């Protein structure tokens, strides 16, 4: 039976009817047009479906859409403020931290979560934070370098969210 749910997606309120068995990843991609989270394995092993729920990166392929009723969901599309790349995104470009780019949205979210908890992570901490995001192209070192390169995140995504939240 379809249920109506409301949640915040990248700072905007969204109201949608879902069947309980619809998966969050599929609802985001196929019904709401948010394409950055990808389906890499559909089992929670690769991390390319990562989105943030209430500031924590989770695997959206293992979440029923209905579970985010009343919650805050953020994808990489919501990180940018005024079309400006975040310092992390800029660092990714400078360090050649991506090749095919398929894992990039997930890894950027994992790194964003890390940097908000710990603005100066060690290389070991960075590795642990992104260990759940599989990348086949880069060999990870350029990604780790992009993250450790940043000693400060000048604008955290939480500030972005607060600024963008629009009351209906």
């Amino acid at each position, binding site marked *: 039976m379809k249920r109506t749910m409301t949640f915040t997606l990248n700072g905007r309120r969204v109201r949608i009817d879902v069947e309980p068995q619809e998966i969050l990843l599929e609802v985001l*991609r196929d019904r709401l*047009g948010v*394409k*950055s989270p*990808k*389906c*890499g*394995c*559909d*089992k929670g*092993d*690769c991390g*390319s479906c990562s989105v943030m729920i209430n500031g924590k990166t989770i695997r959206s392929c293992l979440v029923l859409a209905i579970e985010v009723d009343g919650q805050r969901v953020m*994808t*990489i*599309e919501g990180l*940018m403020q005024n079309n400006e*790349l975040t310092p992390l*995104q800029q660092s*990714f*470009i*400078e360090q*050649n931290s*991506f*090749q*095919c*780019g*398929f*894992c*990039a*949205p997930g890894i*950027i979210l994992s790194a964003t979560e890390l940097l908000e908890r710990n603005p100066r992570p060690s290389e070991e901490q*960075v*590795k*642990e934070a*992104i*260990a*759940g*995001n*599989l*990348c*086949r*192209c*880069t*060999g*990870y*070192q*350029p*990604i*780790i370098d992009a993250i450790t390169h940043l000693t400060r995140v000048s604008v955290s995504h939480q500030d972005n969210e607060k600024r963008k939240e629009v009351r209906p």
Partner: protein
Amino acid sequence: MSDLKFVGHDEVRIDGKAKVTGAAQYIDDLEFGPGLLFAEIVESPYAHAEIIGIDTTKAERAEGVVKVVTGKDFPYSFGLYMQDRFVFAQDRVRFVGEQVAAVIARDPVAAKRAARLVKVRYKELTPILHVEDALKEKPLLIHPNLKNYKHVPWFYPQAETNIAHWRKVKKGNMEEGFKEADLVFEDTYTVPRYAHCAIETHGAVGLFDHSRRLTVWAASQSPFTQRNVFAEALAPLGLSHQDVRVIAPCVGGGFGGKAGVSMEILAAALATAVKGNPVKVNWSRAQEFYNTYQRQGVIGKTKIGVKKDGTITALHQTLYWDAGAYVEYGANVVNAAGLSATGPYRIPNVKIDSFCVYTNLPPGGPYRGFGYSEFLFGLESHINETAKKLGMDPVEFRRRNAIKEGDTQTYGGHMNPSGLLQCIDKAAEAIEWGKKAENKSDPTKVIGKGFACFWKAPAMPPNAASSAFIKFNEDGSLNILISAMEIGQGVLTVMAQIAAEVLTVPPSKIRVETPDTDRNPYEWQTVASHITWGTGNAVKKAAEDCREQIFDLVARALGKNRDDLYLENECVCSRTEPDFKQPLRDFVINGFMMKDGTFRGGPIMGRGMFMPEFSSALSDPETSQGGKPNVHYTVGAAAVELEIDRETGRMRIPRVVVAVDVGKAINPGLVKGQVVGGIVQGLATVLYEDMRFDEKGRMLNPNFTDYKIPTAMDIPEQVISIIVEVAQPDGPYGARGVGEHTMIPAAPIIANAIEDALGIRMKSMPLTAEKVALAIKTQDTK
């Protein structure tokens, strides 16, 4: 050459913004509107069986179903180098997972439900899962019709056997060669199958519209080759190349797996079954493992003859390839490896027999390295053992035998300029070869060092061509239209840099995007590490073509002396008139207005095409002599420092170094990217990835839970990337390819390091912690 402004620099990737913002669109991101239909494939549960009958009646009546098709609807074969594969299985199935039928429905759930209602009756046949069984006397034939298959003239299928192709190389005199030797030594090395594991799975959408135009969108490394295969396979439907269009969006990793045609043919075929509606075929991760190309397994018997002073006098390689159920592409891997299984060494007497053997396992095909990773494990392990037997340093042994420019190769051709000795020296220096490393604080750890040389040539048909168009825009920016695919390696940026160097328009003002076979000019495939060389040459020619038109126009419209003109900072300048600076943007679309109001010029457009005219696949079928199959080789050397925990077998890599001669690094940062990414992928094959099949041919670990690819916690502590530049005379700015090479040496350097640390020679990949620990335990109890 030294004052190049863009080439040779770490230009920022031009596809960066799209990829870090999530704007980049991959096949599953494309929208096709409410008419999109979804296909679910009915797969064979058996590795080898006859299809007795298929009942689709229940499925056809299921809710949401538009059409159900089987092999009867598509009795067509296809293949790149040999036509041995079928759109849908015909009279029999040859591997677990092979497509037998398909349901097309309005939504994925309906398709899935209905697919379960398709009833297939099989008669099981004995599956042949090992090369030894395929090669028995009077074996069960997996392809009884082998002798009637169409194939390229340089393949030699053996009728009435399971040998799809036998590449024979004979150079010099083997008997003499071994007689001359002071030491003759033989051993066997085993390398299993591997999976590409691109994070994006295969996907394709086909639309056969009401004007009978077939368009296929596919995550593909080869849009033009796919168009060709689709047109040939579906020719019985009245289709020809002008009716077929392939569009490729961003590709989420290829590694060879998205080259050629595997599952994409299903989108093309199914589209023709439902005129007017696009049909999507999206592969799950499990299907990605068992029904796309796999890297073939190989058993290599290596026999070497050497003199006391380390000179190699003879080499005999016998390679038995587990090539899988269909070898339309994989047979060329066997071929390419067969021609080059000597490694980068000068060997006067060579015999190589490379057998492409059918088995009832997933089809083998192109995988980064194209057979070279597979044979190099055995060869470089064997070389180390040989050096050890002679009491000679393994690096010195390699130096002594290293192939040089002009040396004769296995097939009679001559070696191109190469910096192999430089690579060897630099890699040895970077790993501090000769200096023993120890972990003084932990007695359970032992450290060894391993070394290997590597090489590879692009394995291409002799007429593999690349082409490019360049057109300008009103703001002086330009578009490069190529059909080389960006699979992550950075080709779009490298092409922009080449055009930038010629036309002085910076890469930030250059767009290079993914191709559409209707709009973009021909590119054979994005494989073989040949794009920088082939497409680079084409782009350079196209840019030079633009430049010539620009100078011609400025000379005649503005009355300048053509020979004085040059380009700088997006302007036409004159050596004799320092104040003359004509910005490109003013005229590259609009031309010049003359005093009388008429115009000269118009849109500047350049074209370039590159196809080597010196390459030939014709050679003596018994010896391979006389052929010119390989345009050039890229060479290199690699070394690793490996720390082994004697109790657990777990291995840690404090340092690994890859030195490669790329001729000219158009973008050194991107070359480094290939080194880091490639060596990690290579190390994964030797340390972690472990594909398992049961006794019925079913893959037991088609997922990341049990087929382990490295995470950020599993990488070497330090990857040292060394770029050597000995120019490739016919490459753009001297460049040659490097995309595959960086993973090729990974397995033997680990095997050699294990031997150095423990005195244990391991000859069967993968060399997992378990195998190492148990080998140590066995050694300790002896």
